[in-house]
């Protein structure tokens, strides 16, 4: 019983005191309220000195805004090179006739060394502004680096807290200097130009897959799956900063880049390349839904058809099976348009058979190229079946 008396005493004392503290706003031993308010204001004003912007403030005109990053590694010497393509601040906001109107829209900065971190910090020998990578649009790696090892690239991108890993990776078919020092017409910034083309190619021609960002590469490699990255090469005799828009030429071949073919990457290494037909077949097998246009042959005569993946059925397990439903359209069928139901059936069967052959062929070569399909161990085991249906007709029902 004694304990409870003690407890009573303790708690009674406590709560009573708290209640008093609540009821009386200013105990006698604190300064009058005016003083108190002044002290609080002063304290608040002083803490404002500690607000974070004193250390991490950045001004827009102190930044070098990166639009594209290029990486190269010499497999023999291990010497690495980083290219940063930086927006020219004078052209970024230019109007016709204003200062900077005839300057290059981007500058490419290049630095080499043994480690990517060292290179990045030594970049300020040549770059007068703070590197800002939050808005870069693409990463380009050289083919020799891709054939050697891509881990460095993935780690470098994932390491930087401000850089997103959701930008596409491209493999350069030519020396990096050539690619990174080439300007593109139409879109001012090559990085932007390349990204826009990738999304068009994905939707309109199925030559580019959906998962080609750094993050997809990292994830697929860790799962021992393959990724097919788009490849980049320059167009034009003498690609140089003198660029069609500036020199006033109409010829977009003068200086440009083009996206051709696909590089198969597996275990962080490039193992092979795919041509356009193989790319379409691969993207169909992966279940990508974009339009593709192909010229098929029907009774020895050519016919151009547009197609899109409708439904895909995958059965995994010991005997994996993939069933593809292709929706066909006659948007570009200028050679021949079927007239009867019977002709149409034949067309569908023929197209399905030809596509099926191509897909099977790709699966057969899969092992050699290093290709994998999601959750399928060996693409050679897959039984592929294609069913084609005409879903859309074009603006004319018979060619002239």
């Amino acid at each position, binding site marked *: 019983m004694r304990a409870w008396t003690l407890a009573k005493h303790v708690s009674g004392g*406590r709560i009573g005191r708290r209640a008093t503290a*609540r009821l009386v706003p200013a105990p006698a031993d604190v300064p009058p309220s005016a003083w108190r308010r002044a002290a609080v204001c002063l304290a608040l004003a002083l803490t404002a000195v*500690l607000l974070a912007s004193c250390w991490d403030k950045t001004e827009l005109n102190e930044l070098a805004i990166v639009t594209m990053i290029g990486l190269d590694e010499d497999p023999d010497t291990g010497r690495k090179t980083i290219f940063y393509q930086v927006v020219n601040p004078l052209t970024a906001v230019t109007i016709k006739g204003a200062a900077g109107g005839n300057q290059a829209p981007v500058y490419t900065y290049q630095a080499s060394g043994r480690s990517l971190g060292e290179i990045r910090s030594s970049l300020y020998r040549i770059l007068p502004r703070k590197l800002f990578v939050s808005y870069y649009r693409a990463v380009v790696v050289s083919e020799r680096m891709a054939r050697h090892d891509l881990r460095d690239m993935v780690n470098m991108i994932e390491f930087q807290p401000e850089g997103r890993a959701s930008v596409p990776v491209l493999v350069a078919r030519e020396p990096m200097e050539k690619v990174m020092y080439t300007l593109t017409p139409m879109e001012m910034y090559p990085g932007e130009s390349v990204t826009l083309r990738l999304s068009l190619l994905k939707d309109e021609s199925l030559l580019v897959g959906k998962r080609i960002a750094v993050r997809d590469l990292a994830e697929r490699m860790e799962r021992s799956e393959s990724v097919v990255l788009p490849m980049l090469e320059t167009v034009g005799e003498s690609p140089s900063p003198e660029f069609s828009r500036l020199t006033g030429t109409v010829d977009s071949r003068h200086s440009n880049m083009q996206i051709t073919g696909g590089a198969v990457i597996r275990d962080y290494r490039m193992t092979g390349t795919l041509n356009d037909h193989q790319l379409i077949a691969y993207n169909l097998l992966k279940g990508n839904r974009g339009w593709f246009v192909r010229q098929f042959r029907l009774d020895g005569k050519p016919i151009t058809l547009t197609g899109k993946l409708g439904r895909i059925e995958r059965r995994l397990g010991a005997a994996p099976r993939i069933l593809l439903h292709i929706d066909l359209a006659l948007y570009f069928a200028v050679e021949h348009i079927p007239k009867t139901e019977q002709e149409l059936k034949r067309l569908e069967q023929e197209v399905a058979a030809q596509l099926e052959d191509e897909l099977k062929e790709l699966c057969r070569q899969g092992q050699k190229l290093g290709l994998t399909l999601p959750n399928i161990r060996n693409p050679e085991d897959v039984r592929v079946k294609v069913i084609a249906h005409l879903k859309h007709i074009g603006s004319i029902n018979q060619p002239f």
Partner: protein
Amino acid sequence: MGATVIRGSQFYFLTVNFCIGTTLFVLIPSLVQAGGRDSWLIPLWGGACGMFFALLWIWLYRLYPGLSLAQISLAALGRPLGTVVATLYYLHFSVIAGFVLRNLSDFLTGTILPKTPGPVFHIMFLAVASYAAAQGVETIARLNQLLTPLLAFPFWFVILLATVNWDWSRFVPAFQPETLAGVFRFHTILGFPFLEPVALLMIFPFVDGKTGRMLMAGIATAAASISLTVFAIIGSLGVERTTKMTFPIYSLVQEVAVNDVIINIQSVISIILLTLIFIKLQVLYYAAFETLRQTFRPVMRWPLLLGVSMVLAGIAPSIIENGIQNSEWRKNFTFAHDAIFGLGFPALLLAVTLIRLAAGKRPGAGRGVQAGAGARSATGKGAQSGSGMGPRTGG
């Protein structure tokens, strides 16, 4: 008047935010490392255990209605021993608050504010926390109530935006025996966060009704939220990348891109996490401060507030040297450390109380205690609310 009484719903939101607090951005990598594709199960079973622990605290509180944890230890163990236990609790709350502060500054310097020194965050947060703690529990509860919708809606909205990268294949094969073994071997989750709500026992006496039920519901909601977040992170980022990242939830939001217009919205998640962490710190600060105040009963409060703040400002930079130490600590000692304070001492207090009850007048003693406690709370609360504790003393 009801000045210091907070509503059950306010206590519920306080519990939810307290449990989620730092968990979302400190624990997820190690959680996914342990449980792989099925790691979203970990918070669920952890939360179930947390509710079980909460029963112990509720039981203890039912024996001493109207008393906070510090007062309970004084009442149960007597002045000398009770002071020791209460002081240990003060240290425990300070240590957790130190971890919370440190995690916060590590997160900010690691992501958006790399050049700002850590103590700046500590001192600024402590300044606000000490001010709110001086204003009392009602202020804290109202602040939290005001902030909760501002936290919850943007949080789930950005998580929803991030699901554009969703891929169900990241969950297959699910429920493999070896990953499930990892799921149930991850005992850190029991300590952090589900043994930490013992700090909420300092707020118990102020809650106006349904305290126990609200605590249980809060823990369950927090467990479900953490589980759902982990599920979203696995579905959108994949196990392979999540385990290798320091702050997966930040990277997740960083990669959100809506039509190339809305990109780089990671500061949204930074602010949400910052506020969540602040609430956790606030509760811990209050608990540490009140524990000392109720144990030693100083005449003036401001030296105590200053002292608590200074100790915390000292603990935060020195408690760990780096993130690797932090994760080692979590892996090896968090459960043991939190179990001493979340289970050990409450069990001790409970045992002592039950023994005393048994030794005293057998049936009457129990009722006597409760009636006495009710009287205590009535005298205590009488000045404030008059109605607060009285009706619940019997149950």
